[in-house]
């Protein structure tokens, strides 16, 4: 496990919650930030801030260099071929909408299918619904198995020539399941489908190599990986990016603007209309450097150790049901559960009283919630700064909740 001294880098962790030690177990929603990330942004603003690109003066040059260096850092972090394949966006949601609009609106039509999985986050569902409405393309869903994994065989059965897009999460934010994206991508490519991977949960927690994954597009957010809000990435394979139209129009993304039509700037600028999230890119790069210094395989091991510990401890609590794989095979550090007789929101409130921050609800995955028959679950998720003490605090809190509700 990662040395718990990393906790000292996270100012918020020294806070107490209603007089209790904070056990922050909601990193899957958004992670906390180390001072290294906050300092990097602060330093930019305090010493070399200006708008990027157009400024023929030193501050702008320095800000541009910092912004482009962040792009290179992001490219390296996910194993991209070149930094020009990295587009900075507002977050995973925007990244996926950009693909749906920019590629989908151009290339999809009646008779085409968009194949999603039943465990997608709304961010990889709703944009495709919007595009389906505009193009007439049809949505189909690959189911999950009884042990909360993607039903890959069923997915393969659904894959035929009419499937033009396969949208798949690299890790479920509810179940923790990590589907075999590389296999799915290979199969999808056989039928000529585009593979759009939602990397919002995987990127913060496992080493990622977009080439090895075989993705065409790969989306993730900064705020879930120690970075700031307001930034995310869309990576695209260059051939695919060339097939994509910009979703947003505006400054910096054009080659020329005539009155009635425009031509686009080279990639990636074509896809970054307007003033980009400059400080946020610098903050994200600092977060990536922080994670790389720990080592992403160490991060993955740390998460796995805590998850295993938590699965063991939680399975000893009577009336507690876990929604997700119960072994450590291809699963990440997200554990969703319910407790008989106590609604997840009540669990969350009681745990909060004990300093334990968890999430309750449908976790932006209502199709999945319906499939697993739990419209609301409680969810604990782990990251570099969590320790077994946090898990113990969770378990104590759950016992407290049962006591309060008089549940055996």
């Amino acid at each position, binding site marked *: 496990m990662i040395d718990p001294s990393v906790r000292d880098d996270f100012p918020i962790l020294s806070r107490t919650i209603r007089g209790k030690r904070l056990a922050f177990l909601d990193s899957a929603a958004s992670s906390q930030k180390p001072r290294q990330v906050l300092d990097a942004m602060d330093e930019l603003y305090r010493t070399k801030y200006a708008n990027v690109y157009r400024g023929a003066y030193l501050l702008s040059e320095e800000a541009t260099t910092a912004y482009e260096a962040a792009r290179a850092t992001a490219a390296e972090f996910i194993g991209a071929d070149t930094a020009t394949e990295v587009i900075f966006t507002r977050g995973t949601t925007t990244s996926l909408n950009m693909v749906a609009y920019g590629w989908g609106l151009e290339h999809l039509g009646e008779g085409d299918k968009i194949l999603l999985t039943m465990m997608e986050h709304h961010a990889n569902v709703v944009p495709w619904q919007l595009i389906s409405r505009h193009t007439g393309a049809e949505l189909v869903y690959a189911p999950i198995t009884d042990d909360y994994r993607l039903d890959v065989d069923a997915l393969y059965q659904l894959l035929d020539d009419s499937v033009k897009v396969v949208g798949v999460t690299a890790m479920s934010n509810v179940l923790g399941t990590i589907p075999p994206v590389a296999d799915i991508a290979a199969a999808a490519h056989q039928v000529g489908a585009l593979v759009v991977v939602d990397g919002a949960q995987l990127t913060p927690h496992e080493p990622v190599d977009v080439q090895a994954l075989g993705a065409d597009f790969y989306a993730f957010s900064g705020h879930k990986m120690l970075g700031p809000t307001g930034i995310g990435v869309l990576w695209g394979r260059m051939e695919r990016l060339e097939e994509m139209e910009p979703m947003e129009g505006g400054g910096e993304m054009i080659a020329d603007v005539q009155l009635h039509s425009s031509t686009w700037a080279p990639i990636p600028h074509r896809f970054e209309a307007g003033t980009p999230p400059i400080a946020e890119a610098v903050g994200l790069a600092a977060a990536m450097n922080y994670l790389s210094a720990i080592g992403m395989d160490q991060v993955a091991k740390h998460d796995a150790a805590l998850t295993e510990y938590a699965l063991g401890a939680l399975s000893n609590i009577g009336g507690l049901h876990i929604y997700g794989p119960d072994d450590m095979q291809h699963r990440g550090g997200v554990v969703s559960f319910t407790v008989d007789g106590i609604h997840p929101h009540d669990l969350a409130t009681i745990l909060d009283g004990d300093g334990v921050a968890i999430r309750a609800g449908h976790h932006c995955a209502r199709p999945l919630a319906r499939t697993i028959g739990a419209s*609301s679950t409680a969810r604990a998720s782990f990251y570099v700064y969590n320790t077994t003490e946090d898990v113990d605090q969770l378990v104590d809190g759950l016992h407290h909740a049962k006591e309060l509700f008089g549940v055996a």
Partner: protein
Amino acid sequence: MSLEELYREVILDHYRSPRHKGKLEHASAHAEGHNPLCGDEIALDLLVEGGKVTKVAITGQGCSISQASASMMAEAIEGKSLDEVRDLIGKFKAMMDIEGDPKDAGIDPARPGAALGDLEALQGVRKFPVRIKCANLPWTTLEQALEDV
């Protein structure tokens, strides 16, 4: 702020054994309420006869606060005239108003339960602002249903 104040025994009791559970065959009014952010759901049937709510039936799912509030609301309004129901809605809202004063709801600390009965147990929710919308859901659903009458 203590959890015991939020989860009073009467609330847990209504949560475990919700009153007036079910649907009405010939409802005069029906409304559904839904809290998209937390998933709480309420479906409410009213039978109104001669200016009175003569029957109430509720189905729903959600947290203890929303479901107990629904159950207590059903008990409180059955048998009341529409005017009395509207008055009760006003008092309940006043009680849940985070910036309001319980006295506006007619609540007298010296005589607990005298104004709003069991519902007064929900006062503790005010100390948990994110849960206020749970307590209010049945009542906004009731307001909707009354528009049909």
